Structures are given as C-alpha cells and as structure tokens.
C-alpha cells in the first residue's frame, strides 16, 4: 500500500451531499474480478454524456482544467455512503486521488480509503465550504496541503486546520502497513480467545 505522509496539490470541490458509491463508480463499470482498470469508470454517470459512452461532459469538475490534476477532493457530507463496493476507492486511487476532505463519510467507504492509501479528512462543513471558495479563486495556484504527520490541512490563505484521525488508521497510512500481517503477530491471542470461547459458546464452532 502506498504510504501517505504529506501532499500539496490541486483540490477539486464536489460539494454535493450524500454522494453514494454507486455515483462514484456505477455497477456497470465494475467489469472484472480485480482492483484495477476502474479509473475510467470513476463518476461515470456524471463524467460522461451518456451511459456507457466516453464522451466527456465538459461541465463535470474533474473534466475541467486544472482539476484534472487534482489529488485532493473537497466533498459534501456523508461522502461515500451506500454500497460497500471497494471499487469506489480503487477507482479514486487509480485516478490519482490521495485525500478526500468532507464533513462526514460513509463508514465502510472511510475504512476502505485507509486500507488503500487514501486519507479521509473530516472537517466542519463551513470550513470545507471555505476551502472550496479559496481554491476556486485560482485552483492551479491556490493549493491545499494535507499533512498526516501533524494532522493538519493548510489552506491557501495560510491558515492551518487540525483534524482528528484514529491512531491505528494514521499509523496504517503513514507506514503503508498490511493489516493482516500486523494482526498475525497476535496469533497467540486469537488462539487463546478461541480456546476460552469454545467452552462458553460451543454453538459458534461448526
């Protein structure tokens, strides 16, 4: 997994509320059993003129310069709600998105981000809207910095805004850790749990 420490990049505002994972990647765009080849399907319903086509809708933010180079997405509340499909995150990652800043996230989506090197940042709605206004004034020059080392977002006006993130999620992103390998170090504890639990709840052990 790609590590995340700090990025300074163009940010694209997409402040709609309740953007669901069906919108991030429609089901029809998930064509193969795998994690790759999904970027072309990112936001397909909004990004292209018609279903299945690749004729770009010029109004959609990620089809406009300089937002095509955006590595940060400014999003509305409850971003990534809906289906658990990790393809939504794989599509964002392959497209080049490294961090998403929103007032809140769908729970499964946020977990999927952390496991794929994308940093979900929760900031107040008013602050996200303010960042969007600052960026829109001159998106190619008014960049955002997202720093996971000191857990801050630096706005184009130079102000720094702290964000909170679970320590385990931060460590996973900073180190690019494989969660399974980490948990396997606790194999003894898992075996001990099973030993105790088998006596207490025998019906669990088919």
């Amino acid at each position, binding site marked *: 997994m790609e590590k995340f420490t700090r990025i300074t990049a163009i940010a694209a505002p997409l402040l709609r509320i309740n953007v669901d994972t069906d919108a991030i990647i*429609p089901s029809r765009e998930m064509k193969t059993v795998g994690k790759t080849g999904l970027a072309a399907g990112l936001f397909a319903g909004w990004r292209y003129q018609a279903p299945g086509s690749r004729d770009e809708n010029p109004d959609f933010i990620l089809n406009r310069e300089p937002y095509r180079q955006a590595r940060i997405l400014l999003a*509305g509340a409850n971003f990534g709600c809906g289906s658990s499909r990790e393809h939504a995150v794989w599509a964002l990652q392959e497209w080049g998105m490294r961090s998403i800043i929103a007032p809140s996230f769908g729970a499964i989506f946020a977990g*999927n981000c952390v496991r794929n090197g994308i940093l979900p940042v929760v900031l107040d709605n008013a602050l996200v809207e303010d960042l969007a206004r600052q960026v829109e004034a001159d998106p190619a020059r008014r960049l955002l910095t997202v720093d996971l080392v000191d857990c801050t977002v630096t706005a184009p006006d130079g102000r720094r805004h702290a964000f909170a993130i679970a320590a385990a999620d931060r460590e996973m992103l900073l180190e690019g850790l494989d969660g399974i390998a980490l948990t396997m170090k606790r194999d003894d504890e898992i075996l001990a*749990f099973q030993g105790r639990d088998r006596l207490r709840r*025998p*019906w669990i052990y088919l």
Partner: protein
Amino acid sequence: MARSIIDKLWDDHLVADLGEGTSLLYIDRVFLHERTGSVALKELAAANRRVRNPEQVFCTMDHIVDTLPGRGDSTRMPGGTSFITQTREAAHAAGITLFDIGSSDQGIVHVVSPEQGIALPGVTLVCPDSHTCTLGGIGALAWGIGSTEAEHALATKTLAVRKPRSMRIDFQGQLAAGVTAKDMILALIGAHSASGGVGYAIEFAGEAVRSLPVEARLTLCNMGVEFGAWTVIIAPDQAVFDYVRGRPYAPRDQVLEQAIAYWRTLPSDPDAVFDREITLDCSTLAPQVTWGTSPQHETGIDGTVPDPAGEPDANRRQAMERALAYMALQPGTRLDQVPIQAAFIGSCTNSRLSDLRAAAAILEGRRVASGVRAICVPGSTQVKLAAEREGLDRVFRAAGFEWRESGCSMCFYAGGESFGFEERVVSSTNRNFENRQGPRTRTHLASPVTVAASAIAGRLADARTLAR
C-alpha cells in the same frame, strides 16, 4: 457498570485492546457473494494466505446471477459470468460452503443468512456488503465491510474496529393497519436524514419494534446503513429464539438451550447509557414513499412533493433541486397522483415470505394496470419454494407479475437488467440513488404492499384503500 447490548457483544468478542478505543474483535461468521467476495478470495490466495476456519465461512450467488427461469452461469451483465465462475473456483479451493446456482439454499445473502441459521443472536458477522446490518434484526452484531477488510476477517478471524458512539432509537406506539417496518425506517431517515446515524452503533427499541415479527425486524435493520449507521441491532427475544429453532446451521437440543440462556443475557441493562437517544412516534405513521434520489427524500403517501424553496439549508436545497430534476417531479404534486411504469418486489429489504404474502393479499383477484411492468423476485430459493407451496406464485402471475428465480436482480443494475431509460419504478428495495436501477431510471422506494397497490393503480397508491 450498566451495559448496552452493543457493549456486551463488544466485550464478549474482544480479542485484544488495541488502544485509543480500537479493539481487535473476534468474527464468528463471514459471508461472501460473487460480486465483492470473489475479489477477496482471489487476493487472499494470490498473497498465499489461507482462510482460517473455512467451516465458518459461507458464500452465495446473488448479485450478478440472472433471475430468469432456467438460468445458468450466463448473465445479462457483460463479463458477469467470470464473477460467478471465479467465485465458484475460489470457494471450492478455500473449502468454504457455497450456496451455488441450482441449489435449493441459494438466495440473497441477507435472506439466506438467517434462514439457514448462520446469522444467530449474539454472533459477530461481516460481509463485504453494506446491507449486512440487516442481521441486527435477529440480534446479531453484523456490519458491512470492504473487500480488503473481508480478506482480513477471512485470514485472521478478527477485525480491528474503533468502537462507535452509541444511540438508542425508541420507536413508540403501535403501527396502524397497512403500515409496515419499511415505513418506519423510511420515516426515521426522512426525519433525521441519510447521515443521521453516521458514527453510531444503534439499538432499535420500543413498543413498535417489539411488536414486529422477526422478518419485519430484518427489514427495519436492513436500511440502517441508509441512515448512515455503522450498524443497528434489536435485542433478541422469544420470537427470535422460536425463529432460530430447527434452522440448518443453528444449534440444537442441549446446546440450543445453552445458547438461549446466553442470548437472554444480551438485552441492554435497564440503566444503560447511550450517547444519543431519539424517539419516533409510529402510531400516526402513514405508508411512506420516496420522491427523490436519497432515502431521506421521503414523505407519506398522502403527502406532496416538497418545494426546495422552503429548505433553509443550501446543501440540502441543491440536493432537492437536483433530485426533482432527475425524478421529473414538480413541487406540490400529490404523491398518489404520480404515474408509474414499473413495479418491483424483491431485494434483501423486502422479499421474504411474509412480504410476498402481504403483497399477494393485495394482488389477489386484481390485475396490474396496463402499461406497467411488474416483477417479483423471491429473496431466496427457499422463499420461492415456500411461496409456491402456498400458491402465491399463481396469485402474482394471475395479477400480471413476472415470477423469477432468486437474486438481487433489479435492486441495482449489476445483473445487467433495467426497467429502462427514465422509466418510473415503485420498488420494495433500499436505494433510490441516481442510476441505481439502471441509467436514468427513476426509483420510488416503498413497502411491498405499497408496490402491489401502486402496480394495480398504475400510479403510487395507498394500499389501505385496497385492503379487504
């Protein structure tokens, strides 16, 4: 210290405290399907990792599988067959139990799971599917995860989870006749928004919940994720214990009695404290129906399409305007005057035997309005067979409904089938997102009886006007 049901289940599954509110929780059951489970199994094998305790892992074919009679591995969705064949190969290689196409136990994952006794009260169960919270209806601590987390659960029998804040929702009063669990959950989301439960593990409680049969509790919990909750749960009671008895993977005899004794200890202590408590009066609820593109865009069937101009919050107002443009509806339109072109009964929300019985009671002796395409997809092959034994299939067919094999079908577009461009569908499913049921398809969520009544009327309709 007084504990909630969620606290108790958390404590009973705690393998290790990882600090800062994060726990390594033991996962009793993992369920997979061919859409997202295939990736997890394949990636796990590619990393040379094995499934730990494959006897506690199950898989079904539901998301992409065709639902037309005589189906096989071929799908309407281009490339869909590879998901099916690769899932089958991976499931066999991993030694997990697969409810395959053609099996009498196949069906939609969250219908099969309690039906087979795989989801039980008090178990932790995860599935790479957001509607896994359905199983809170029988008192399981069950939540949806991504494919990478599914790999983790398969390989380690655990997941690292940060404990969410706690909420209890008190559904007060008794439902009026013709009003259902689907109407309760839509009303909750309408009142508190699609993000009202974000960050919370939620207990559904109260008189209206206690009165619901077990299958209706599964419907209520199904849309917990549409409320934004991490998961939702209802304390198990005698109705659940009776439901579980005799299910294929449920405990039997002495062990069942031991399990029930444990399950009786799970309900929240009377003085348990929650971070947030809200109430919803159910006694005055009408059947609910959505008018927009989020489950929070809903109102009573006796209501009208709201005017975005009256919404003070700018974000919500813009979302409403977008929704009305997508749905081609005007503010002030009476919902029961909106014509429909299609009706769908199915999905993990509302496709169990009790749902089909209730819809059939409306349809019996009546015909679907001309120009309306109506489809019923039973939630599992077991549900389908039971319905056929009762003759429900004949009622549906005589009314003009298609009667299908089980699967997720047109709840979403993965099967490759859609009602069509800009067609208006009344649907017993859980998501009215843009393009969810197909490109530009317009979805109105409602209960199975509302869907049945609307199919007959050719417009959104109040089933209570047709009750016998």
